[in-house]
């Protein structure tokens, strides 16, 4: 392999490795922390999960009431998409085929979360409300994208 060919290969690998490293932005390290919705479903044996299960008209449990909150983040304003799906695995390491069920939700928008406040004296991290993003334009590049999987 010539030096130029090797260089091209390394560039190719670098180009495709950067998104893998940078894609997930750890929420606990963020400046303004999103806050979970205060309500949610009470799951026996587990407790309250801060998420609802929206459903269609004419629904029956385990859906929540018609028009139930689809978001898991409170003080949020923006785009929301969600849906339940089913499918099949096409390949598995154990050679078996599995049915697949998903509920993947996407949120893009502004939110009011919590950040460490300035109270004029050192604190343990006491929070104050802070706005993240632009609530007047859901597609503002300053707005955040969250995915619930």
């Amino acid at each position, binding site marked *: 392999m010539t030096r130029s060919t090797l260089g091209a290969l390394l560039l190719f690998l670098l180009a495709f490795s950067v998104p893998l490293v940078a894609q997930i932005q750890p929420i606990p390290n963020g400046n303004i922390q999103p806050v979970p919705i205060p309500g949610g479903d009470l799951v026996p044996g587990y407790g309250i999960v801060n998420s609802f299960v929206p459903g269609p008209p004419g*629904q029956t449990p385990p859906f929540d009431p018609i028009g139930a909150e689809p978001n898991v983040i409170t003080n949020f304003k923006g785009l929301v998409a969600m849906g339940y799906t089913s499918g099949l695995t096409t390949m598995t*390491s154990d050679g078996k*085929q*599995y*049915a697949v069920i998903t509920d993947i939700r996407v949120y893009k928008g502004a939110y009011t979360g919590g950040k460490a406040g300035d109270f004029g004296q050192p604190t343990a991290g006491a929070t104050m409300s802070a706005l993240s993003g632009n609530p007047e334009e859901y597609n503002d590049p300053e707005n955040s994208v969250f995915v619930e999987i």
Partner: protein
Amino acid sequence: MSSQLHDFSPYLLPNGLFWTVKVPNSALTINADGSISLHLVDVPVDDAFTFPPPVQAVPGISPIQLIPAKLSLDITYLKGGNRRHVRPTSHDPLSPLNWAGTMWDSTNSGRFSLSYDDGSFSASGNFASAGNFGEMGFERNGVFSHDEDSNENEEKSTFLEAAPILSPHAVVNSVPKTERTVLLKGRVPVHVNE
């Protein structure tokens, strides 16, 4: 009904935020036809096997066993008909009905691949709404839920104007019959196979 054998999710943040990750804006594409596409690569998730997860026979620090894995997926949401305006009908902060917005029925479909970090299990496949419920649109909750000016802004959105009207149940319900179920998320009320 099949039994659940796997349950992949980012699991819970210490603050209770439910199975959520933050991704860069570049992961989400909002298309001119009103659809949106999400592309995720190697999202750290855990396999909790079921939801609620089983308690470990010999508990460690965590009472449940979580197997670290990586998930990649592509998913596209299509806006359908049946636009509805949502208004808060409760002031109870814990209520599911304390939010506002404009929502449409939607369908979605995609493909995924995942593998345990230790390489002992991997799977890939496809998924689609198949007649199950989905919705997309604009919402306001919490401190924004009573922002009345937002109604007009939502109506003016180019995203809303461009979106085609599709049947929310255009995809025929074709839930397959298989022996096993691997969930990307538990407690999902889809039409499951008999």
